[in-house]
């Protein structure tokens, strides 16, 4: 099978920590422009899978191909430069900087040391920040210190920081954790907006939310894929029911 059609193709991926296999022979293919949601009970290996893709954890075996480029041996920052963006489970932003600075730092220019020294915040950067800030509904808070944002806004800001880089693959680890109902609503809209022109992987527990956004759902259990398909099909799968309700 050719991998070229997929945004990301994962084959036989395995990672073991001292013999414990957190991911065990996993195969996963995600299309261009797809929004895929990964669900599964705690300890299923969802976050580890994202860690493997973005490089936070190194694979023991198997391959990850992004745009047909092998990632497993690549340094993290290079994967980012290829177009992979990752939001962490707990919002990871620079609390001491303003919202503007947070976004500005994420602008994909001046990434080398010399580039950073020569970097100038010109109109192009400012315009880009403005666009993204409007996307993430923080346009009126640009001068606020990021630490003062609400939890939900911090989540958005982190998503915004990823959008600054215009990634082709966006991975979001529990993006609506700690959000109010209204914020969830807005986030769902946000996700639908931003998955145009890029693939998105979301890890989420909230089934209502998943139903709302998912194109396709993958269920993971003990490092393996248990089921995959549209939400309705997956929900009817007896294995899945067993895993979620069986114990």
């Amino acid at each position: 099978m050719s991998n070229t059609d997929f945004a990301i193709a994962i084959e036989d991926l395995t990672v073991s920590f001292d013999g414990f296999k957190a991911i065990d022979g996993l195969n996963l293919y995600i299309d261009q422009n797809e929004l895929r949601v990964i669900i599964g009970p705690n300890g299923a290996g969802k976050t580890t899978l994202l860690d493997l893709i973005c490089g936070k954890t190194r694979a023991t075996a198997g391959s990850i191909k992004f745009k047909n480029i092998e990632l497993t041996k690549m340094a993290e920052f290079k994967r980012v430069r290829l177009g992979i963006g990752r939001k962490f489970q707990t919002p990871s932003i620079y609390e001491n900087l303003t919202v503007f600075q947070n976004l500005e730092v994420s602008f994909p220019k001046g990434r080398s040391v010399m580039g950073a020294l020569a970097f100038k915040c010109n109109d192009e950067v400012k315009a880009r920040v403005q666009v993204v800030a409007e996307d993430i509904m923080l346009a009126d808070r640009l001068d606020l210190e990021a630490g003062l944002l609400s939890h939900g806004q911090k989540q958005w800001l982190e998503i915004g920081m990823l959008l600054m880089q215009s990634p082709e693959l966006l991975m979001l680890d529990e993006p609506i954790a700690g959000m109010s109902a209204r914020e969830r609503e807005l986030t769902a809209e946000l996700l639908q907006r931003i998955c145009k022109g890029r693939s998105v992987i979301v890890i989420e527990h909230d089934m209502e939310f998943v139903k709302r956004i998912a194109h396709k759902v993958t269920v993971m259990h003990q490092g393996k894929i248990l089921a995959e398909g549209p939400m309705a099909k997956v929900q009817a799968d007896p294995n899945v029911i067993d895993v979620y309700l069986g114990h």
Partner: protein
Amino acid sequence: MNFSDLLNIGLMQGFAGLSLFAVLLLMGLGLAIIFGQMGVINMAHGEFMAIGAYTIYLGSQLTEQYAPSLMPVYFPLAVILAFCFAFAGGWLIEWSLIRHLYKRPLDTLLATWGISLAMQQCFRTFIGPKEVSPTLPDWLLGSWAPVSGLDIPRNGMFVLALTAVVTCGVLLALSKSRWGLRVRATVSNRVMANATGIDTRKTDRLTFAIGCGIAGVAGAAFTTIGSTGPTSGQLYIVDSFLVVTFGGAASLLGTVVSAFGIAQTQSLAEFFMPGSMAKMLTLTLIVVILMMRPQGLFASKVRR
């Protein structure tokens, strides 16, 4: 020079390597416990060793003056006292300083350096600037010569035995005792340990104090090899650091292996080349290996 002479020298040389290994291990052990289990670098480690050494010295002075008949047995008692004093000092310092700095590990380094300066000046003011050396009991002096031409240093044997006891004690305590359990729990998840009713503050204090106590024992053991002065601590800490750094800081096993490696390299190199060259060779090797494996021989598995 016949074959049996050569054999004897070979045996003695092997023992020289072993006793250097014991010395290095004993020096590094306390430091490794504190760093490995708590992430704190104790720059006053050398001064705690000096406390131990001075305890022995004072012990020998007092015994000589008031109870000369006890000279043969004072040494083991003084070693225990050395542990107690250093332990108490460690307890006090953890309580007064270190516990406020757990969130800032680099700052503990500076604060403990300050402590080491203060302790040095205390030694100088209260004990005197001269290097001192205790009067050792006869059974620690000279050599044990099972056959003529083969001299095994008694102080070396003593240090070796002491190191074995202390190391085994620490390993056993870590794996079997309540303290060990608490320490391991605290290391792996502080919040969780707290939640399950482990007093992590007390565990930290105990760990720090035990580390310091072992430093005290190490210092006590060195009185059989060298002398003690107010600044001896700085001499000790350098070697301790090398051992711990090279071993991979977080791992006791690493400390053991690195002490063994360094000791054997240096001891062998010293036999075949001049002392200064040997030291250089050993240090260069350490650097080269550290350049290739900056995290030390046995790095912890957890990613930073």
